[in-house]
């Protein structure tokens, strides 16, 4: 059986219906363990004090924010090439989640910035490119909402997503070129020398797993919602 069969709404509904209960338990578990461990079970940082605990929300949400867009890029491409409706709807479903995650990363970052840098906001490249990402999400969502014909909306948002990806990358580069920042570099690398202390590293990994699972489950639920709405619309159109 080919993977593409899950692009069929019936197949997808069946599989996702079975997956959701399992996944929700796993998600709750990971999030609870990760956050409780992070909040209660980690020491203060010698430099940042207790604010280091924010990392358990900040980094996972930032990762999801970026990866949600990448997922949308892939599903959009699948829609454009193979025209599987479920794929387009999954992209639509992911956008609000990506936006929320972007906002969480921005929010926690801003709150963290106040004690660390003395300001909620600075025009640092990392921060700025996240704000640009939020605008891309907003535009994408607004475009979905502005077009009534669903196939047309899927086409246009997919094209926007592809073009937007290129320009998001360009902006990231441009913003770096424009300003040197305050924000720290990658501390999550596998290279032992670089990444944060193990005391933070392991709970952080659990939190990331929790966020990833949460993202997956929300995408599944939202895609199911979209599929149901499409079916309802089709039924309604046929009955009149």
């Amino acid at each position, binding site marked *: 059986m080919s993977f593409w069969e899950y692009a069929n709404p019936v197949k997808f509904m069946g599989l996702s219906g079975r997956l959701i209960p399992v996944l929700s338990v796993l998600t709750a578990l990971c999030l609870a363990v990760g956050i409780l461990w992070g909040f209660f079970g980690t020491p203060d940082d010698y430099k940042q004090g207790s604010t280091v605990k924010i990392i358990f929300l900040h980094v996972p949400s930032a990762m999801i924010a970026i990866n949600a867009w990448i997922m949308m890029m892939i599903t959009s491409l699948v829609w454009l090439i193979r025209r599987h409706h479920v794929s387009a709807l999954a992209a639509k479903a992911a956008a609000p989640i990506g936006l929320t995650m972007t906002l969480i990363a921005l929010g926690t970052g801003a709150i963290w910035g106040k004690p660390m840098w003395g300001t909620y906001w600075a025009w640092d490249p990392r921060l700025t490119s996240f704000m*640009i990402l939020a*605008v*891309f999400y*907003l*535009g994408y969502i*607004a*475009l979905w909402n*502005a*077009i009534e*014909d669903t*196939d*047309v909306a899927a*086409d*246009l948002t997919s*094209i*926007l997503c*592809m*073009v*937007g990806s290129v*320009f*998001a990358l*360009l*902006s990231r*580069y*441009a*913003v770096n*070129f*424009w300003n040197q920042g305050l924000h720290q570099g990658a501390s999550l690398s596998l290279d032992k020398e670089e990444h944060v202390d193990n005391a933070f590293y392991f709970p952080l990994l659990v939190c990331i797993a929790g966020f990833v699972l949460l993202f997956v489950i929300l995408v599944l639920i939202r895609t199911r919602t979209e599929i149901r709405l499409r079916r309802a619309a089709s039924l309604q159109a046929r009955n009149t």
Partner: protein
Amino acid sequence: MLALFTRDLKLAFRSGGGFGLALAFFLIVVMFVPFGVGSDLTLLARIAPGILWIGALLACLLSLDRIFQLDHEDGTLDVLATSPLPLSGITAAKATAHWVTTGLPLTLAAIPLGYLLNLPEPAYIWLFASLAIGTPALSFIGAFGAAVTVGIKRGGLLLSLLVLPLYIPTLIFGAVSVTKSVDGLNPLPSLILLAGLTLFSVVLMPFASALALKANLN
């Protein structure tokens, strides 16, 4: 394609003076800045490159929706789509016409307006170069945004929302090159990046726009 290009130029002139108005808007935005931030000359000189670039960008943005919306509303776009011209050629012709009627006059007008904002001497040539190189990218990226929003009745603001983040790299490379020249640094690297960006937009955006138009005609 040539017919389309010349017709678009003609229409821009006829419908209340294409050239003049983008210019006027640019002029007025630049004029507003001293009203808003006060008339301190050293302050103005520092923000001049950025304001000039932002002003040009907004003036360009404001006329984007004309690129396809009018032709869509009166049915011309439907007919063009069934005509011998390829859609990507249509968008390229229209984006070029848009550049000739906005980007080009804006570039020329930026020099005297720079004087109003007390732009330092050595920056003029770089301001001119960066606008001349950068504004085609604005027109071609903008045409893509216009193609995406063409079906939507007066999607003017949605258009801005979609296009503005796409404009960020152009703005940054453009403004940075002028700022660098003001600060006595080498503006060439960012100018080269800007040229690359323009080349990329001019070559590839018409195809993306054609896809979007195709979807919108449905």
